[in-house]
């Protein structure tokens, strides 16, 4: 499943950075701001931007295929952000909503309001400060892995019905593959959405629909994808940039 569009609510400093970061990896970014000044600024910076009101019934969003769209709620006011998340969840139960919060307390409110993923600004900043001090190599490595422009990357491969890996245990798969990749974890969509790290769950039986999280060089990942007959989700990264 590739993300085709991003709907971003708000245009403060955080939202602007998000828009800039996503500019090169996503086909379409649409910004909805609660302030006309923000709308004009977003437009002047080259984004498609519209004015929005919290009382809207969000009919505009019906034009998006929400199965391939991410909604990011990054309004300045925490209360407004919670209200917005709640309204969107109510209207679009299947949408993937990412929301920004300043603290963990607000993060839990946003989760209750229905956000799929909440990024707590303060905690995230504090964690990154500590990671850079305590584990600089790992921090740099993880940042590079998630950077789609780098050669070494992390990718998620969904196993199809016809995948030869289906019916094998993870350790069998790891032993038979000749590829220079590391299978980090498996997400069993049927059992739950939590991770089974390969370092822990060697005996997990692979099913169709399972997602393998792999780390490796682009070429090796593609070859591995063919070998296991899965669908890789990293190709988007080469489009926009």
């Amino acid at each position: 499943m590739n993300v085709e569009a991003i709907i971003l609510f708000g245009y403060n400093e955080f939202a602007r950075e998000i828009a800039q970061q996503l500019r090169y990896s996503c086909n379409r970014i649409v910004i909805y701001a609660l302030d006309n000044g923000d709308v004009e600024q977003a437009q002047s910076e080259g984004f498609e931007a519209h004015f929005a009101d919290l009382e809207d019934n969000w009919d505009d969003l019906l034009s998006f295929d929400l199965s391939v769209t991410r909604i990011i709620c990054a309004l300045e006011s925490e209360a407004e952000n919670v209200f917005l998340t709640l309204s969107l969840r109510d209207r679009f139960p299947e949408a993937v909503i990412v929301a920004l919060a300043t603290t963990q307390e607000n993060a839990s409110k946003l989760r209750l309001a229905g956000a799929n993923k909440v990024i707590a600004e303060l905690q995230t900043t504090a964690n990154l400060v500590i990671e850079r001090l305590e584990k600089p190599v790992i921090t740099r490595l993880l940042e590079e892995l998630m950077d789609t422009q780098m050669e070494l990357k992390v990718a998620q491969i969904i196993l199809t019905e016809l995948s030869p890996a289906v019916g094998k245990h993870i350790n069998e798969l790891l032993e038979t593959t000749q590829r220079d990749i590391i299978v980090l974890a498996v997400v069993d969509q049927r059992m739950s959405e939590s991770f089974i790290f390969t370092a822990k769950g060697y005996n997990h039986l692979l099913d169709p629909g399972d997602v393998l999280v792999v780390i490796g060089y682009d070429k090796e990942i593609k070859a591995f994808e063919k070998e296991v007959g899965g669908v890789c989700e990293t190709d988007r990264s080469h489009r926009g940039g």
Partner: protein
Amino acid sequence: MKLFSRALVDSAYALESSQRLRRARHSVDNLMNNVGYRYKRYFDLFMMVLILSSVFILVRDVKFPQKDFLAIFNDYIISFIFLIEYLMRFWVSSDSARIIIDQYEKDELLQREFRAGRAVMKALYAKWRYVSSLPAIIDFLAIMPFFHELRLLRLFIIFRVFKLFRYAQNMHHFAAILASKKFELLTLFTFVGLIIFVASVMIYVMEALNPDSKVNTLFDALYWSVVTISTVGYGDVVPVSGEGKIVALVVIVSGVAVLAFATSIVVAAFTEKLDDIRDGKLIQDIQKLKSIYLICGYGTVAQQTASKLRRMGRKVVILDADAAKIAEARRHHDLALAIDPASLEALGQLGIDPGRQVRAVILLGDTDVENVYTALTLRSMNKELRILSLLHDKKHRRKLESAGVDDVIYAQELIGQLSREYSDQPIAFEALHALRAEHSGVVIDEILIDERMARFVQTVQDLKIRGRRLILLGVESRREARFVFNPPADFAVEENDLLVVIGENAMLHEYRIDLHQAVHS
């Protein structure tokens, strides 16, 4: 220049340039006067034990005949140690060689003849100032029993008790607090003295001729006045005449007023100085710490960062010029000081050695201006110090880097990156962040190949990582100056390389132990 003057200056330069002498002097000075010096605490403790032993022996001697070995210990050994201490304090109290050199250089600069006599007088005066100071007098009297033959001088052993003041830091604080209220206390004592004088004279005049009264002399009158004004009132001497009783009433009321006044002065002094005392103690504690994270600027990010570092068992010291913020910080953290981290003088008062004690500095001030200023101050103190700073406005990034910040963190950019990562590959994102968060039980960690390990581990195969349910993600290779992903079994591992390993916490812990044991076996 005269022969004597030349010899004096030459000797002074010789003493000044002697490295051994300077080192010895520095060590003695630290031992005697530097409360931050690690061995001073043991020295003070040792001296306090000697003093208490000496007093114990003296008290015991009153009713029990002294045993010989105790007498020798008290009169000679302890006194001799005190004498050595006195001489050492005398030595480091002033630098005579430096005084002479300063005088010589000053005279040279002004192109006039070196006045040796003046220089010697200056040096002697500096020593005299020390000798005539109260602590030095107490020290001197405390070594008096050393002259055993003069039995009378044994009483001076009591002065050893006063020496305790020197070794107990809290006593210094107490004396400093009282000294800060010198004017008020002087006024009080003058007032009390005046009342006692007037009351003594009055009661003597009123009572001395009365046959029933016990006030017969001026001393009786003085004794009665002091006992009454202090509100002790033994009742052994009481006025019997009506006039005497009126004097008593006035003295009693004055006594209550004097007590209230005295109490208020002392309490006010303590209240004013309490924060300083607490800060002083805190600074002493901080000076003893090693490997600390110094957080400059206290706000919400600082609170989160400090709390997490503390949970990880790291030592964190928080500095902020704003006393209100430090008061807030102290609710969560013990080591927080209202000190401006951008002031060299303030950092000097803190007395920490950045190169030796500080693991890294984290600049979390409210503005970039504040952080740049602090970074420059810290960089001027130490070139090697690791400095990380939060960036508030991205157009200031270059300024922070120019100020010597090693790592700049721009929260907005990071949040943007995370949003992009999550939007691109939510599952991979969650997997990597689950490793970071450590709540899944599986962690990603670094293992350093130290010098000992490097002797026994030559290749990845020697690491014996296979079959341990651990994943070797790669090696940060010093030789190749890059991260080598999933290295083959024959890849050479060298000293200071970092292994990046993923695995269960317990497994990783066990592997670390095994790796060290393999080296030691």
